[in-house]
């Protein structure tokens, strides 16, 4: 079966071509890489993407803004809450509106929960790919806890669709905030636990240090963003450079690396989880009472209770659901720091209820484009370490 995947060329009898993926346990989705190997050394690597291309940008042109929201769940399906927030912020920028303070805090909670959830999957599968199965059980135990919180807040584990343009779909109750408090208090200890399994583990160090090195200059040239860029020593984080949802009010650090290897990318993401817990802690302390949604019946759905008793609210509900809301003509680019890096939405509006053009600037797409640079000249076993350390989600690469 595997025989037909290997092809020898007459000029280079020692070089064999191996097809890795598109369905391979270590490619973190449907990524295919054609590897030319000289023995165990990778001579050339050509990534092929597009297996999860669903044409989201085309679909967006034929949906109202609100109807497009569920599609954002299906980009980075390890952190859908962050994409929900990013999309709504972009549309709000187009409309020129701002959400109330309580909603901003709730959205920060969403973004950081998404970061923790995504990084837990990354760490568990990264270690599993390298043969350290134990870590996976620890991170997936805590990910269940995290998913319980997500489910209690949004009603779904994965397809959250929690935010709305101008607010969120439902407020968090006191019980949920208490549950989250328990998680936030315990989580840093769990991160220490993962760290005790890996950070000074001799095999882990041998497999990750000096592997898949990318310098700051190359990382920037390739449009890399997120933890992978910061591991190369570039302190670029949208939350700090371009604060949104009130991120300027939180005290947190941006961890950076210096060597830009697999190990630094590991350390940066690990520390990011601690910083996320720190942000969650501050958000829980600072959350204020008050409205969560904007008071604009042309944009935001009225409360159900009023829809059932008042004619005017019924009409507003009907209009928003069937036709959507009007946006002004213009174009905006708005980006947020999602677990993978900078997720940007570029909306061209000619007025009306659907975008003329919606562009999704995906961090995973740009990050994974560095793969040939990282793996060529290295060993085939390190290809797997490199893929995991870039933390791509192919739903977001292909959109």
């Amino acid at each position, binding site marked *: 079966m595997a025989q037909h995947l290997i092809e020898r060329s007459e000029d280079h009898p020692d070089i064999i071509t191996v097809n890795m993926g598109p369905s391979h346990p270590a490619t973190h989705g449907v990524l295919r890489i054609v590897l030319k190997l000289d023995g165990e050394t990778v001579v050339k690597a050509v990534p092929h993407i*597009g297996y999860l291309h669903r044409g989201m940008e*085309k679909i967006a042109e034929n949906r109202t803004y609100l109807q497009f929201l569920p599609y954002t769940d299906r980009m980075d399906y390890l952190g859908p809450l962050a994409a929900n927030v990013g999309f709504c912020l972009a549309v709000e920028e187009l409309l020129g509106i701002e959400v109330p303070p309580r909603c901003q805090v709730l959205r920060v909670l969403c973004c950081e929960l998404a970061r923790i959830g995504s990084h837990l999957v990354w760490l568990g599968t990264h270690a599993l790919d390298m043969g350290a199965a134990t870590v996976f059980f620890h991170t997936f135990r805590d990910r269940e806890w995290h998913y319980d919180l997500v489910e209690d807040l949004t009603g779904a584990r994965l397809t959250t669709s929690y935010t709305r343009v101008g607010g969120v779909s439902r407020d968090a109750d006191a019980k949920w905030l208490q549950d989250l408090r328990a998680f936030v208090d315990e989580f840093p200890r769990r991160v220490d636990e993962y760290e005790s399994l890996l950070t000074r583990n001799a095999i882990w160090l041998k497999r990750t240090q000096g592997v898949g090195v990318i310098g700051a200059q190359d990382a920037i*040239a390739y449009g890399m963003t997120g933890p992978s860029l910061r591991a190369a020593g570039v302190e670029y984080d949208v939350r700090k450079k371009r604060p949104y949802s009130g991120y300027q009010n939180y005290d947190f650090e941006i961890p950076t690396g210096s060597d830009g290897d697999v190990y630094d990318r590991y350390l940066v993401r690990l520390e990011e989880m601690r910083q996320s817990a720190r942000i969650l802690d501050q958000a829980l302390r600072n959350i204020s009472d008050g409205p969560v949604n904007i008071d604009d019946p042309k944009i935001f759905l009225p409360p159900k209770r009023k829809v059932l008793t008042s004619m005017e609210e019924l009409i507003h509900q009907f209009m928003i659901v069937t036709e959507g809301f009007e946006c002004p003509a*213009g*174009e905006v*680019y708005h980006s947020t720091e999602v677990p993978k890096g900078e997720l*940007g939405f570029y909306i061209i509006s000619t007025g009306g209820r659907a975008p003329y053009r919606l562009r999704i600037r995906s961090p995973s*797409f740009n990050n994974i*484009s560095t793969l040939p640079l990282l793996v060529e000249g290295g060993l085939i076993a390190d290809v797997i370490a490199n893929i995991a350390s870039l933390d791509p989600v192919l739903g977001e690469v292909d959109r």
Partner: protein
Amino acid sequence: MADGEKTIASLRERFPEAVLRAGSFRDQHWAELRPERLVEICRWLRDDPGASYELLLDVTAAHWPDEPQPLEVVYHLFSLAHNDRLRLKVRTGDPGRVPSLTPVWASANWNERETFDMFGIVFEGHPDPRRILMPDDYTDHPLRKEFPLYRG
């Protein structure tokens, strides 16, 4: 200062005949450039210390079928040093041809491949002008406006 405003002012000063149009919305400024000057201007934008847009965030396009030059390529640049975003555009006829920015930024490689795949715009000088999301034997360019959402 709003995003890109200062840079566009210095572009107008330095390359007066190359800036065709400019505009802004919600404090985000954009400039349309002459395609033949694009590479030269982008190299200046990357290297000049007053601009230093080291990061090419995104390349994409929009299709305006009723306009004389229906294809518009849009670039988003970011300067880490000055924390400034800039949006550049070039217009081209149909079938579209614009110079590739791969000599300036490596990230142009995949992003231009996607723009070609989706709009059929040819990037002259691109080292690897293949499709990227659609299959190699595919013949359409799905983000063009004449491409229907449903078929059959």
